């Protein structure tokens, strides 16, 4: 049998019907649903008199526009309240599981999937959200879709898809101390460009990737979309199996052993060919900070704000000029001299226990700078509870951070948590687009440890220097 990639294997297994010279009808094992991209899909289903085909493969939560203070109280914003109500009604009408506010399972959709064990190796997973790529960290094929496709999956449990190309991103060697998987993915995007992965599914491989924990892999795969890729994935290994054992929806006993044996087959065969490959040395990555208005506008923390004149391509130059105007930055400014007003630790990229632990270690016994307002938003109730058991909330609160309730919060600022015009934020989220965290707000993407250190210093610092102190 010909050697196959991980992606080929999952794709092939899920083709229900192949249109000659056209797209494949792909079976979807897991459909995750949230309140913002689904109302129009349910409405269309209702109008056509259709049902949800497989409620046992459909899981819903509320995350995008929920409050992070007193979540069980009334939602002040009438539009957000309506969306939350609609989600509840749709789940009732169509017989779907909803991890509602107040349930221990509630949280950001891409945090709860792996945590509950519904994200498993070899599955096809979709959600009306571009960061669905996150779930690929467990050896699944997971990608974001739009609302019409949400409707289609609800109604048929399938999707028409043209097969993307495969893209190997191999990281050899090891990451240096102080360099996290967030720095790695920002560095990769800086190198391949934000359109670099368009039309592809990335498989991250190599010794540096194998060495990452599952939570670190989730962060890595999460931002595949920022490199333009449909999905990002990491092959299943013993860490994946150990991570899943005992989780809420994972089979137990003999069924687990059988599942684990199958899961471990989800890896690229020796000699399999990718459509495209890049190889980087893990040791070549430093902590990253973005300076512009897309995630590819990024540099080492030891670097400086670039001079737009240094871009050869006129379109890129214009775009860098625009970005610096928006960000109110001068070319040549060292990144570590940029002062910040706000810090946000949260989002589906960096709100898991590992992230919070790292950030807490960084601020332990220190204080948030007077000029800075800092907040931590755990990714789920489970993360929040576990963190509180470890006393992580206390470390943050003593340092002067706000400790909030789970949700997307200031990652996309739909719920009222937002930057004021002109405010500058060190954020562990995934997008620094204009206005993403609030109209006129200025976002710099960084790792949790870098965000925590910036909160204390009042400006960016090289976390590697702190580690030595």
């Amino acid at each position, binding site marked *: 049998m010909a050697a196959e990639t991980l992606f080929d294997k999952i794709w092939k297994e899920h083709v229900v019907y192949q249109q000659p010279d056209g797209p494949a009808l792909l079976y979807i094992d897991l459909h995750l649903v949230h309140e913002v991209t689904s109302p129009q899909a349910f409405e269309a289903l209702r109008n056509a008199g259709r049902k949800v085909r497989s409620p046992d493969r459909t899981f819903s939560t509320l995350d995008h526009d929920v409050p992070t203070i007193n979540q069980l109280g009334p939602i002040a914003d009438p539009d957000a309240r309506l969306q939350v109500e609609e989600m509840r009604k749709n789940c009732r009408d169509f017989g779907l599981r909803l991890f509602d506010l107040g349930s221990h399972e509630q949280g950001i959709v891409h945090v709860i999937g792996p945590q509950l064990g*519904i994200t498993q190796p070899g599955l096809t997973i979709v959600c009306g959200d571009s960061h669905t790529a996150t779930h690929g960290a467990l050896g699944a094929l997971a990608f974001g879709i739009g609302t019409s496709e949400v409707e289609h999956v609800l109604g048929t449990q399938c999707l028409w898809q043209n097969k993307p190309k495969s893209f190997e991103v191999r990281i050899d060697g090891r990451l240096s101390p102080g360099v996290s998987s967030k720095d790695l993915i920002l560095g990769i995007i800086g190198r391949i460009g934000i359109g670099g992965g368009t039309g592809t599914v990335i498989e991250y491989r190599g010794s540096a990737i194998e060495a990452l924990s599952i939570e670190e892999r989730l962060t890595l795969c999460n931002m595949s*979309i920022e490199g333009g890729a449909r999905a990002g994935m990491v092959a299943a290994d013993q860490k994946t199996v150990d991570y899943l054992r005992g989780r809420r929806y994972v089979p137990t006993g003999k*069924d687990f052993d059988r599942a684990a044996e199958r899961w471990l087959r989800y890896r690229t065969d020796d000699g399999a060919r990718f459509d495209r490959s890049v190889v980087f040395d893990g040791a070549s990555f430093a902590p990253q900070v973005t300076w512009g208005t897309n995630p590819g506008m990024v540099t080492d923390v030891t670097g400086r704000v670039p001079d737009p004149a240094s871009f050869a391509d006129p379109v890129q130059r214009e775009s860098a000029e625009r970005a610096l105007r928006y960000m109110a930055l001068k070319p040549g400014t060292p990144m570590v001299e940029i002062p910040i007003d706000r810090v946000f630790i949260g989002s589906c990229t960096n709100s898991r226990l590992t992230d919070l632990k790292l950030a807490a270690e960084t601020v332990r016994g220190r204080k948030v700078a007077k000029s800075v307002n800092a907040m931590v938003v755990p990714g789920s109730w489970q993360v929040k509870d576990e963190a509180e058991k470890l006393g992580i909330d206390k470390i943050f609160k003593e340092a002067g951070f706000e400790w909030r309730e789970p949700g997307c919060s200031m990652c996309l600022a739909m719920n009222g948590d937002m930057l004021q015009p002109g405010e500058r934020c060190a954020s562990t989220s995934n997008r620094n687009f204009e206005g993403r965290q609030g109209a006129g707000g200025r976002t710099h993407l960084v790792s949790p440890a870098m965000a925590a250190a910036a909160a204390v210093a009042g400006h960016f610092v090289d976390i590697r220097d702190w580690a030595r102190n």
Partner: protein
Amino acid sequence: MQPFVKVTGVVAPLDRVNVDTDQIIPKQFLKAVVRTGLGKGLFFDWRKDPDFVLNRPRYREAKILVARANFGCGSSREHAPWALADFGFRAVIAPSFADIFRNNSLKNGFLPVILKEEEVEAIFQAIEHHEEAYELTIDLTTQTVSDSAGWSARFEIGEFQKKCLLEGLDDVALTLMHEKEIAAYEAAHPVPYRF
């Protein structure tokens, strides 16, 4: 879905790369529970600038948008093509599109047209050198973009997508014609969860 066959109209130039969907339709408009009326939120923050292209009277009736590479990157929000369509656009021309935006557009009878960099550049040039508003015709049957002066360019699109667009087919109904294959798949692959 509204079919797309042939459209002639004014082309509005948006001379930017990497236009992300957060710009096309900012978050405050995502709280809608219907698909219509989103045109008012289209490029909401950019439209605060009185010189922004869509604020110029000649582009009020524009049907085609032309932009630079990687149009529609970022968030998967289908509100982006909904907003463009609600504003009156029927198509966007660019050298490349983000995958999800492209899929979302195709599901709404809103055509993302990929032309070569130099062809897109030629359109920007033509707009600049025209006294009056510059018009293009996009013909899906012949897969061409052309102007009245005889300039034309060809674009690619999958046969299946083309058929769906030309006939305005309902995707779900089309898929349910494969009920037998879907049911067979499900019989062989039970739900992988413990409830």
